């Protein structure tokens, strides 16, 4: 018992690694904030573009979404960080992480948005267009507000997954939570920083998990 407390919940070690962990927390928050925003925007863009049904564009979007969804995010990140420099494109670790997460997250988000858009009856689009609204106005004012209500649960779940996946950025030397904790661990020769990271992730993600449950219940009740 003492051994567990000594190694996992050691306040002295925690105090010594506090600074490292705070830097990690800040990096991780910036990383996930920006990545979620960009991925969601990109996903929405792909979904709306695909729904517009341009004959030459759709196969490209479908191919992109399928390939990226099948590609492990860590492989994607390694390609961006270690392979792109061979052709002269050298991204800092932070932006490599953002790019990998956005490309991957965008593909998953786009499928979720597409599902929501397609769940709205055609008559809604027809009614809006017959009033003279443009395609984009119809999307923005009529279709998406209805679609988003339906897809809130998968949207939140996907955001959860994306946030968890952001820890891969530690593999390209980005000083995120995980990376900083590993460093603090080797500095203090104690596992407490890693436990602290787990706690911080739970602090961020448990509310989101609760939110999914809440949204699911609401959709169920209103449906």
């Amino acid at each position: 018992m003492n051994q567990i407390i000594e190694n996992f919940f050691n306040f002295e070690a925690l105090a010594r690694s506090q600074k490292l962990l705070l830097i990690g927390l800040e990096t991780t928050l910036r990383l996930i904030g920006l990545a979620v925003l960009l991925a969601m925007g990109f996903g929405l863009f792909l979904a709306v573009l695909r729904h517009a049904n341009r004959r030459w564009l759709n196969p490209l979007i479908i191919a992109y979404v399928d390939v990226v969804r099948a590609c492990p995010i860590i492989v994607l990140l390694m390609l961006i960080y270690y392979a792109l420099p061979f052709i002269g494109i050298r991204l800092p670790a932070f932006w490599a992480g953002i790019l990998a997460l956005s490309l991957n997250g965008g593909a998953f988000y786009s499928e979720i948005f597409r599902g929501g858009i397609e769940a709205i009856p055609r008559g809604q689009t027809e009614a809006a267009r017959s009033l003279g609204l443009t395609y984009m106005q119809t999307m923005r004012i009529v279709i998406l507000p209805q679609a988003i209500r339906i897809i809130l649960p998968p949207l939140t779940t996907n955001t959860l997954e994306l946030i968890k996946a952001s820890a891969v950025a530690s593999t390209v030397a980005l000083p995120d939570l995980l990376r900083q904790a590993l460093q603090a661990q080797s500095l203090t020769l104690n596992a407490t920083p890693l436990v602290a990271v787990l706690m911080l992730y739970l602090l961020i993600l448990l509310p989101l998990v609760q939110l999914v449950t809440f949204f699911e219940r609401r959709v169920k009740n209103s449906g």
Partner: protein
Amino acid sequence: MAKLILEIQDLHKYFGKLEVLKGINLKVYEKDVICLIGPSGAGKSTLLRCINRLEEPTRGKVIFDGVDITDRKVNLNKIRSEIGMVFQHFNLFPHMTALQNCTLGLIKVRKMRKEEAEKKAMEVLERVGLAQKAHAKPRELSGGQQQRVAIARALAMEPKLMLFDEPTSALDPELIGEVLAVMLDLAARGMTMIVVTHEMGFARRAATRVCMLDHGLILEEGPPEKIFNSPEHERTKEFLSKIL
């Protein structure tokens, strides 16, 4: 002679290899009330939907108010805003109140100020007898009320032509009357209308002309008395005997 609002010339529509419209010709003058009747699959709804290009005509011309709308270069959104459409399943926007349904086109297409749009929307809701439901969401309204709001939504744009696609087919029988009453009122006020309907009572009372469609062609057209009392075509007789 009344003003020509709509002229359809040799309109053809294919769905894949299936020819749904096989050369439709039709002239609609101001204050005309045209009822399109005929068996299901005759092409009535498709014809209606070609008029504001919810369906793309394959061949032929649709000239609305002097402009050929099948021309690629026309401002389709402007033309659509001048043609009101009422659907079988109402298609109200469920996340908006009755009032918001009616102001949407005015604000977003006509660029009207909000207060002005709301005043106009209240006027048309008043006309369909639903001013007191202005702030209700569609799901709080009966089918008949929803369809009346849908008519108000189209009316708010002050269209030059209104298209009705089986506006009472999805309604419980006891709710049909209130919708037909609104449509009769519109006709009496001189609105130019094209109505796909199975309500022969409405056609008799309101139509200036009835067109019988079958297999993608207008078999015969004429004033309601003629079509209903002395139809020329066997198919028309057969159809009418089945539904009257």
